[in-house]
């Protein structure tokens, strides 16, 4: 496999009977993902897209032995759904939902950590291993199988970069969307480690943005542990950025110098990471480096 998921990964969709859940479950199934069950409390016994629906995660996991779940549930109910998933033995939990209170995410993350599981998100597009499977909402059509690993804090900007890579002939091993919230599950660091260990990944692309310190920690890890070439694009590098203002993502807000794109780019460059000024420069950088 590439990282985190492949075509054999069995996935439960939490909130599968909802509008978002059923729409994206369909697209996941069409892409080749093994969606083996859905969970909606009170709707156990129904079927959606030929997939059985259960009332609880425990029943769904016992019936299917699935190891992954994806949450398409409104923000007020995410905390409970996420803990239920992890307490039922789910190893890879992906939360697509936007607007989850930050303390809920913090406590979910703690439980995930205690159970030795992995959390992706919230407020994220999910992940895709091209040609095999996807969890979440990344459009499969723009991806192609290959050996570039992508890890990103953004959604549509990631699609932009994936497409530039695909059109330039660089397929992807796995693309991981970390999400735009200040407190999130796996970050750049953990993703870099996964890509470092994955034999299918030869290049790693990091897509960051203003705010927080994830990119800076990634730079330190690259110096210490990563032997594969790493490339980066950071959104919010213009002089237009206003400190103290939130730019759409809750995490994209600059407090002090360390959160600026300029500072992040400086630290990434110092760590030997090749940085691009525009999304289309990423495939050029890979080409130059080969």
């Amino acid at each position, binding site marked *: 496999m590439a990282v985190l998921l492949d075509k054999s990964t069995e996935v439960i969709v939490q909130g599968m009977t909802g509008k978002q859940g059923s729409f994206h479950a369909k697209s996941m199934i069409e892409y080749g993902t093994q969606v083996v069950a859905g969970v909606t409390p009170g709707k156990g016994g129904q079927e959606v897209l030929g997939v059985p629906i259960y009332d609880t995660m425990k029943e769904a996991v016992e019936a299917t032995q699935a190891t992954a779940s994806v949450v398409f549930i409104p923000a007020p109910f995410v905390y409970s759904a996420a803990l239920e998933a992890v307490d039922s033995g789910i190893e890879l939990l992906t939360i697509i939902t936007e607007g989850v209170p*930050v303390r809920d995410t913090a*406590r979910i993350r703690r439980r995930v950590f205690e159970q030795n599981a992995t959390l992706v998100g919230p407020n994220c597009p999910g992940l895709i291993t091209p040609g095999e499977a996807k969890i979440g909402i990344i459009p499969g059509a723009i991806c192609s199988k290959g050996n570039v690993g992508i890890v990103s804090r953004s959604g*549509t900007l990631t699609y932009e970069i994936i497409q530039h890579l695909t059109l330039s002939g660089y397929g992807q091993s796995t693309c991981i969307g970390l999400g735009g919230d200040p407190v999130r599950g796996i970050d750049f660091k953990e993703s870099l480690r996964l890509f470092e260990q994955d034999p299918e990944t030869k290049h790693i692309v990091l897509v960051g943005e203003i705010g927080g310190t994830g990119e800076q920690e990634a730079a330190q890890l690259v110096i210490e542990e990563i032997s594969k070439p790493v490339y980066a694009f950071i959104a919010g590098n*213009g002089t*237009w950025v206003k400190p103290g203002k939130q730019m*759409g993502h809750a995490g994209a807000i600059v407090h002090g110098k360390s959160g600026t794109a300029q500072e992040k780019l400086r630290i990434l460059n110092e760590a030997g990471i090749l940085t691009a000024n525009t999304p289309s420069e990423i495939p050029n950088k890979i080409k130059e480096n080969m």
Partner: protein
Amino acid sequence: MSMLYEFEGKLLFKDSKIPIPCISIYTDAESIKQFAEEIGSDTMMAKGQALAGGRGKAGLIKKVTKETAEEYIKSIIGREHKGKPVAAVMLEELVEITKEYYLALMLDNKSGSYLMLASTMGGVDIEEVAENHPTEIHRTLLPINVDPQTYHFMELGKEMGFKAKTLTQFASICVKMTQMALKHDLTLVEINPLVITPDDKLIAADSKVVIDGNAYFRQPSIAALQSQRDQHTDLEFEATQAGISYVQLDGDIGIIAGGAGLSMATCDLLEFYGSSPANFLDVGGGANDEKVYKALELISKMDVKGIFVNFFAGITRCDDVANGVVSANKKLNIKVPIVIRMIGTKDAEGIKILEENGIHAYNKMEPSAKKIVELVKGGN
């Protein structure tokens, strides 16, 4: 994420039994008279309430008497401070101060836990202290599911030099701050300064409280206070009502994009090609034609030299975007050049709709950003 006014923060402190000076909100001349009677003094502080720092330096905080108060209050109320209005004026009793401290509880994004920060260098800009005197800031990281007790903060109090009754008072304030943060989903509770009086009482002389905007659904009383004030301009407020994330900037080209990261990258590109964005605008995932129309309507109210629409459609559908653009173009009488870039879900349908209405659409981001910059510059 949004901030409360000082007086609202102090009222939360009062509810949480954190000691504050006696306060009242000015309404009319009578309210000043009543307050003077209540505190038994003719002298008091008048503090302009605005959602930005540096109020003292800007002359929005002043010692007044019951005779001079109203004239001063009328001179500052409604004034703009760093782009935010002075929305109200709070009257506060004078507090005798022996020493000023800094105390703040914040949600630490890295650990997901609450972090209590304290310093004996209070009353000043804490970022300056952090930069120049890092050893003067003491920290206690709390457990993630903390049930706060005084013992959690005794060591911090000792590091601050507190002893005996002041030490237990300090720890008790820390406990109450943490309980208050847990109860109301706060990401920051800052007291700067926390003052000690000649009779050894600790009092919160200021408040800065920030609530997690994602938690409004379970904090209805605070959410009701907040809905309008998170926005800084009328257009920003209008955008939020429509579910659009919008920040006013001061450049030439109005932008509309889907997704926060892509919106930021779009702003960057305009600068890269030699122009500047007039705004940041993210219509969010799954935007329909009405939202795109609304976004164009917002931009059309601004003084822009051109408009750049940029979509990489995943959940969003390009035919919806195209329909929004077409109806805006018919109804809004937009006179500046528009460049539209769209790709992804239903892009062929979207491009067809635009072309039937005489609008050209691009499918690559960078050439189209370059194009709008050229059109705007050529028009000068």
